[in-house]
């Protein structure tokens, strides 16, 4: 049941990305290009998503257990550190180069574009590099 719910959420998320225009790297870059011919659409994707998610996520945060019985695992950290800032700055630079963030990268993987495969391979390599560096640091 938890897997079915999870699968349905992923499907819904992907349909939302496609409908919103987030799956089109050119549209994402047009949003990030403030000094060019600016397309403000993607700001509204965030507005729509937060408007729907804000109340349910705050309710979820107050619960001890999820509705399907599992533990509530929403993040609880509140500290601001250099890793959070540095990592996010790097992520934004990559996002600005290609116009692709992790959700759309997965959602367009099976649409027959070799560019999506190349981007996802590099992204997974970046994640593995992080895991390797962290593993060495933790030892």
């Amino acid at each position, binding site marked *: 049941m938890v897997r079915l719910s999870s699968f349905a959420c992923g499907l819904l*998320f992907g349909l939302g990305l496609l409908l919103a225009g987030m799956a089109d790297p050119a549209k994402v870059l047009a949003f990030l290009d403030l000094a060019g011919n600016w397309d403000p659409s993607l700001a509204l994707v965030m507005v729509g998503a937060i408007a729907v998610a804000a109340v*349910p*996520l705050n309710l979820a945060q107050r619960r001890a257990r999820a509705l399907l019985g599992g533990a509530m695992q929403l993040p609880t950290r509140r500290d601001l550190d250099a890793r959070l800032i540095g990592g996010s700055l790097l992520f934004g630079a990559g996002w600005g*180069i290609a116009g692709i963030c992790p959700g759309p990268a997965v959602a367009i993987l099976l649409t027959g574009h070799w*560019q999506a495969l190349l981007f996802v391979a590099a992204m997974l390599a970046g994640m593995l590099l992080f895991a390797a560096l962290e593993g060495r640091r933790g030892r």
Partner: protein
Amino acid sequence: MNIDWAGFTPWSALAGGALIGLSAAIFALANGRVAGISGLLGSLLQRQGEGRGEKAAFLVGLLLAPLLWGLFAALPSIHFETSSLGLIVAGLLVGIGTRYGSGCTSGHGVCGISRLSPRSVLATLCFMATGFVTVFVLRHLLGA
């Protein structure tokens, strides 16, 4: 500032955003998890961890979304404006950056801001800032 009114798609952007928000809401309430794609991917790349099947199921759904869409309508346009080298550099930066930063557009930008998490608000300001700056540098200073 020059607004691209011809390319502006407010209704589909809002409706698509609402679907993303609904997905995040159900995933948090029913499964007790944050719909953060980089976190889901990153934790599956580690050798062990809890909830692997559940996390993988979300990603399989995300992966299959365009196939379901394709059964009913033509897929929206997907255009790439980046060279192979650019895609590789971008992918590496996105992969390593989202792991160090503990999240991406979904986990921080949508779920975190919805929860008013100070970490997510700061992370979102950071990646939006370098996103805007990078496009400005590449398009208007370097003319790529």
